[in-house]
């Protein structure tokens, strides 16, 4: 139905209904302020770097500073405005590592990139407050937490420092998140989760302009849940904050490919993360068409190229 029709129905019902409808529509329309000084009226690319020995996509694993510099500069030259650095794998089944080990993994790379004065923001992908505090001291620009900053101490730290954050939705923990995830309907359940989270953060003194949400594709979701999130992505704009999507090289691409091959009676197919680039680009293009402001990817050049071509097709 049209926005006008919805407003008419709401007005006919009650003032409360009309006020809430107007508020939701204004959330959809209002221009997003800059996030960590990035323009949110255009798509932004976040490149992924894993300082881990066990992340699901081996090509994103970096083990020395020389390779880190080369890889980061390539990402920035190819269009990344954020480099996301993580020291702990969050692939399904991954075990938590010690805080000290995580800090030891990420501190030198982040300090090194900061000293190189790279022309992009550096975000820390971590769920440990001590790692966040250590990296904040050396100048990390954004905190990205797959556990959505659920501890009160994290919220207090964010409120005190005013650092921009990315809150991700995940059901359970990486060790058990893919064991029978359950939703009433994933897009609306996750919408409600973020709605409450944003309210809690604002009440704690965090600025709304410092918040980005990530529905967490593949984190405690079935294939059907992930596809429903993509189908209803525009819904999340109603939260009034920018959206980040990361589907790069994830297992849903493999699952869809296998299902199609099985349907055609073919069984042997290599669907390892190295064979999921095209699917990643398809999801990135869909997210861009849904107005998603930040795309998290392992393949910055290819994603940027897809967005450039799409822009000139006036989609």
């Amino acid at each position: 139905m049209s926005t006008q029709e919805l407003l008419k129905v709401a007005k006919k019902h009650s003032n409360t209904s009309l006020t809430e409808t107007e508020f939701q529509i204004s959330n959809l329309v209002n221009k997003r302020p800059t996030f960590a000084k990035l323009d949110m009226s255009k798509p932004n690319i976040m490149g992924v770097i894993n300082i881990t020995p066990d992340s699901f996509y081996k090509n994103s694993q970096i083990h020395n500073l020389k390779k880190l510099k080369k890889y980061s500069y390539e990402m920035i030259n190819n269009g990344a405005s954020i480099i996301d650095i993580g020291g702990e794998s969050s692939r399904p089944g991954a075990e938590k590592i010690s805080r000290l080990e995580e800090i030891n993994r990420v501190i030198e790379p982040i300090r090194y990139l900061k000293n190189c004065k790279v022309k992009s923001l550096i975000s820390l992908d971590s769920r440990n407050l001590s790692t966040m505090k250590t990296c904040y001291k050396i100048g990390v620009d954004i905190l990205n937490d797959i556990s959505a900053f659920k501890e009160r101490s994290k919220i207090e730290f964010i409120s005190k420092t005013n650092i921009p954050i990315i809150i991700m939705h995940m059901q359970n923990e990486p060790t058990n998140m893919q064991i029978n995830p359950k939703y009433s309907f994933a897009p609306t359940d996750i919408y409600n989760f973020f709605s409450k989270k944003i309210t809690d953060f604002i009440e704690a003194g965090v600025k709304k302009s410092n918040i980005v949400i990530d529905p967490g594709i593949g984190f405690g979701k079935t294939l059907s849940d992930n596809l429903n999130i993509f189908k209803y992505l525009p819904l999340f704009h109603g939260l009034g904050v920018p959206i980040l999507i990361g589907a790069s090289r994830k297992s849903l691409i493999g699952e869809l490919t296998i299902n199609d091959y099985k349907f055609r009676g073919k069984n042997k197919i290599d669907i390892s993360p190295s064979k999921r680039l095209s699917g990643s680009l398809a999801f990135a293009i869909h997210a861009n068409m849904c107005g998603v402001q930040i795309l998290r990817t392992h393949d910055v050049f290819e994603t940027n190229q897809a967005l450039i071509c799409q822009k000139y097709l006036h989609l």
Partner: protein
Amino acid sequence: MAFVEKTRYLLAPPYCRSAETFISPILSSPSEILDGLRLAGGWRFFKNLRVLQKKKII
């Protein structure tokens, strides 16, 4: 919990006490929607909404 999607007629008045309401804009390029609304000050536009409603368990 019942889940109902309607694109034309609603299950209940929007944001009333008996049903949760969610609105999802149906997006297009500016060339396809001449008098549409700009989504979040960005590059996509919309005029129509997909309205999702869920009965609340009271």
